[in-house]
């Protein structure tokens, strides 16, 4: 099929975007390695430049997931084709959330070992971040364990619940006494870092955001293609074979 060969090709703009992402990642790496040494932790603090973007972004992807879940439920009856796209996006953003939260947890543990001497501590902020990770793992598990049409609906509902849970998690940082340092940005008069470190922070944030967007788009495309295969296997009939009894 002509159509098929077109969709299978990796588009030029995607290649250019990927090249740009690698360039920004390289700049981010260079900036992170050449930023001034930190006063107390020396070179060990450089993991911060990876820890920070991943944790910040792992609070962004869940909201993309939540918006996609809302759109899916909104379009489910009126526009099933568009609803499928929203569902593919919800799946992709859910997986990226778990990926980025895992990297955030791992880099955080490495840093914690260097800064506090322990890999893990049950302070509220770490606990709630682990909770974020658990929430989206359970989201992916639900997707695995459900079948058929209800998979998208049930996981969309869970996505909304999970997104409601995150602000409670985020608020906890202000409510509870914590071992984790106060938020580096916007945490009060003492917060903020040496201005010389800022370029490294922002280049890495941009780089990992671009990389995340790329992986998200790739995963979305794969899921769309899978949906296409399912639709082809199900046959050309798009409408339900039997008339649906509209109850309400």
């Amino acid at each position, binding site marked *: 099929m002509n159509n098929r060969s077109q969709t299978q090709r990796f588009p030029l703009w995607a290649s250019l975007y990927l090249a740009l992402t690698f360039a920004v990642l390289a700049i981010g790496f260079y900036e992170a390695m050449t930023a001034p040494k930190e006063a107390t932790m020396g070179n060990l603090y450089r993991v911060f430049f990876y820890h920070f973007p991943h944790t910040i972004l792992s609070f962004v992807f869940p909201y993309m997931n939540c918006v996609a879940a809302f759109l899916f439920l909104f379009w489910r009856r009126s526009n099933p084709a568009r609803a499928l796209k929203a569902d593919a996006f919800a799946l992709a953003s859910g997986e990226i959330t778990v990926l980025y939260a895992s990297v955030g947890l791992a880099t955080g543990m490495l840093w914690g070992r260097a800064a506090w001497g322990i890999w893990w501590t049950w302070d509220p902020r770490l606990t709630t971040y682990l909770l974020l990770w658990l929430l989206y793992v359970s989201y992916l*598990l639900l997707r695995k364990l459900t079948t058929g049409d209800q998979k998208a609906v049930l996981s969309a509902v869970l996505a909304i619940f999970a997104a409601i849970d995150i602000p409670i998690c985020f608020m906890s940082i202000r409510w509870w006494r914590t071992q984790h340092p106060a938020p580096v940005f916007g945490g009060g008069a003492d917060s903020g870092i040496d201005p010389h470190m800022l370029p490294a922070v922002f280049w890495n944030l941009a780089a990992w955001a671009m990389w995340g967007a790329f992986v998200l788009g790739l995963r979305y495309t794969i899921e769309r293609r899978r949906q296409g295969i399912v639709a082809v296997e199900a046959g050309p009939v798009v409408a339900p074979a039997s008339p649906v009894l509209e109850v309400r």
Partner: protein
Amino acid sequence: MSYFGHVLTHLRKDLQLEWRAREMINGMLFFALLVVVVFSLAFDPTSYPTVTRQISGGLLWVGLLFASITALNQSWARELHNHVMDAQRLSPAPASALFLGKALSNLIFVSFIELVLAPVFAIFYNLHPLGQAWLLLLILPLGTWGLTVNGTFFAALSLRTRNRELLLPLVLCPIAMPALLGMIQATTNVLTGELEPGLWIKLLVGYDVVFTIACIFLFETVLNAAD
């Protein structure tokens, strides 16, 4: 019939069913008792009263969480016999009334377990609360509602999935974690009398309100997920 009339009808039906069978309550009660005994193997509750006070709040809620998970699965599985669930979907009564009735009946069942379990806990673990014990009358219902409202919702959500018995705790526990943290901390603060449980009670109230609203709005979607 008004909305609350529907809720009451569902509630009355569930209470009646349970009154006749007494499966859920007996099962939960015995299970919770077993959990109490198993925890006593992990440490010596009578020799270390301070340690016991510090961890009993957590143990009590973990026991209740496990017991309610076993029962919550049953509460909807009952509706699957003879296609009662399909009849509920066809009925013109609002879907959220069905949900609220079920959640309230589960609240009553789990509260009953607490009424029996709390004295048993106090006797077996030799507990003397050092804080204001009357606050438990506030913390227990708030925490129980937090557990049962989401538990009832997610039990309905996992009803028609593969491995539904497995799925409920996997989905419920992460969502309920802030509530669990709130109820455990509040109960521990009452038992040890070291800190005021006020903040945690506020957290529980907020959690209950937010998730009750979310459950009521989304229940119809879950009920009709298959079509």
